[in-house]
């Protein structure tokens, strides 16, 4: 057997194994039962329009709030980490390590119940959501933003300072615009992670109008005794996240080409 024949044989074997696996799964699986439980059209139809105008809307709202807070606070933390003032650097370093090291669920509990309990404050549910998710998001984003700022060549800061701009002016109009552009792909990934983390918010307690996608699906699961609602909310998640990850891929390819 020549080398080429042997390669062809191996590839043919791999194809055959795949086809065989598909055939076996199709033969063993109970198609009717799967369709009945996972793709129950009547149940799926009842979920509309609420799955979109309530649940998906809430998921997006909570994501937007947490992301905005995380971006703003993360930028402050990133600048603190790069500060010449020691205590700022130490604070930012400790903060980032702590909040990246804790489970997000624990932070949500702490912010949602711990702080209101300790200080007897009545926080609006949106405040608790924003802080619960945003404090963790800020820690991750701070590291990404710092990498972006450090990725801008030092010559840029020097050129701006040589023109008489102050450190702050140079940072704001020369370094940050370039650094932020560098981190658009990783920040979009943060956004996707945040969308999925909104599913943890149910622990704060929900009312019918504050349910996000996962809670919405779970409640219908127990009402209907069918997993179809989970499939539907899963598809809605993908409808939101897949375009984003694809966008990241396009941006990364374009970034690479422009260098």
């Amino acid at each position, binding site marked *: 057997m020549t080398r080429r024949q042997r390669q062809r044989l191996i590839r043919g074997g791999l194809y055959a194994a795949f086809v065989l696996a598909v055939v076996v799964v199709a033969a063993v699986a109970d198609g009717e039962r799967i369709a009945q439980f996972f793709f129950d059209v009547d149940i799926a139809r009842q979920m509309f329009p609420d799955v979109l105008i309530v649940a998906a809307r809430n998921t997006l709202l909570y994501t937007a709030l947490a992301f905005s807070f995380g971006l703003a606070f993360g930028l402050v933390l990133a600048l603190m980490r790069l500060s010449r003032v020691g205590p700022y650097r130490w604070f930012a370093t400790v903060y980032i390590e702590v909040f990246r090291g804790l489970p997000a669920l624990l932070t949500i509990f702490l912010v949602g119940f711990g702080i209101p309990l300790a200080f007897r404050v009545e926080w609006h549910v949106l405040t608790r959501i924003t802080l619960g998710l945003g404090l963790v998001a800020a820690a991750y984003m701070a590291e990404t933003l710092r990498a972006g700022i450090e990725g801008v060549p030092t010559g*840029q800061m*020097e*050129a701006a300072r040589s*023109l*008489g*701009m102050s450190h702050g*002016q140079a940072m704001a109009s*020369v370094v940050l615009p370039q650094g932020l552009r560098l981190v658009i792909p990783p920040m979009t990934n943060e956004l996707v992670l945040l969308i999925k983390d909104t599913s943890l918010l149910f622990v704060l307690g929900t009312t019918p109008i504050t349910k996000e996608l996962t809670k919405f699906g779970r409640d219908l699961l127990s009402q209907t005794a069918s997993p179809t609602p989970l499939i539907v909310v899963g598809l809605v998640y993908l409808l939101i996240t897949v375009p984003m990850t694809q966008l990241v891929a396009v941006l990364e390819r374009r970034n690479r080409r422009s260098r």
Partner: protein
Amino acid sequence: MGAIETGNPGDQYAIDVRGLRKRFGTLEVLRGIDFRVARGEVVCVIGPSGSGKSTLLRCINRLEVPTSGQILVGGVDVADADADIDHVRTRIGMVFQAFNLFPHLSVLDNLTLAQRRVLKRTRPDAVEVARQTLERVGLADKISAYPAHLSGGQQQRVAIARALAMHPDMMLFDEPTSALDPELVGEVLAVMRGLASDGMTMMVVTHEIGFARDVADRVVFLDEGVVVEDGAPSQVLDTPQHERTRRFLQRVR
């Protein structure tokens, strides 16, 4: 045109360096430099790599902080931590080896950013100045281009225009042609020649011996952190007094 208020208005020197030392850790790069540039003078600084010539240039607008000594720029000591360095820097144009244009901004915005933020010129004024300076470097047609779409020579000419748009009293050039392909060196040197003949005070760190000979009023040879030779181009380049200068010139020719 807003020269720096000098402590001594009769001061004839644009740059007056006295006893400058600069240490990086244990390495002393500048070991007591005394050096002057008169107004309207063009001084070329030559020397082997590691001789401290770029560090000297960068100390003058405080991109490097001197370890000791005085650097009077228009009478203001930039080595003094209390000096209003941002203001002094508006009077000193700086051109880098790596151009350092702002890649996220168009040529026009590269030229108007500091005019507007620092000098508080209005947008129409800043745009008008940008047009004039681009004309001067022969790139008026590139006003809306982005740096990435320009050749290295064009980028460096835009960088010169960006510095000129601030209407500085003097220009510092840090090996302005070292990053360029050989065929692009000429256009940048031509712009610099033009500036010199317009009477601009210039300090140029360079390896272009031919340029130094033609354009400089004075050539300074720096080696191991000290000024070894300082005089007219013909004197320093053709009849150097020191063995070190002779050896260096033999190598670069």
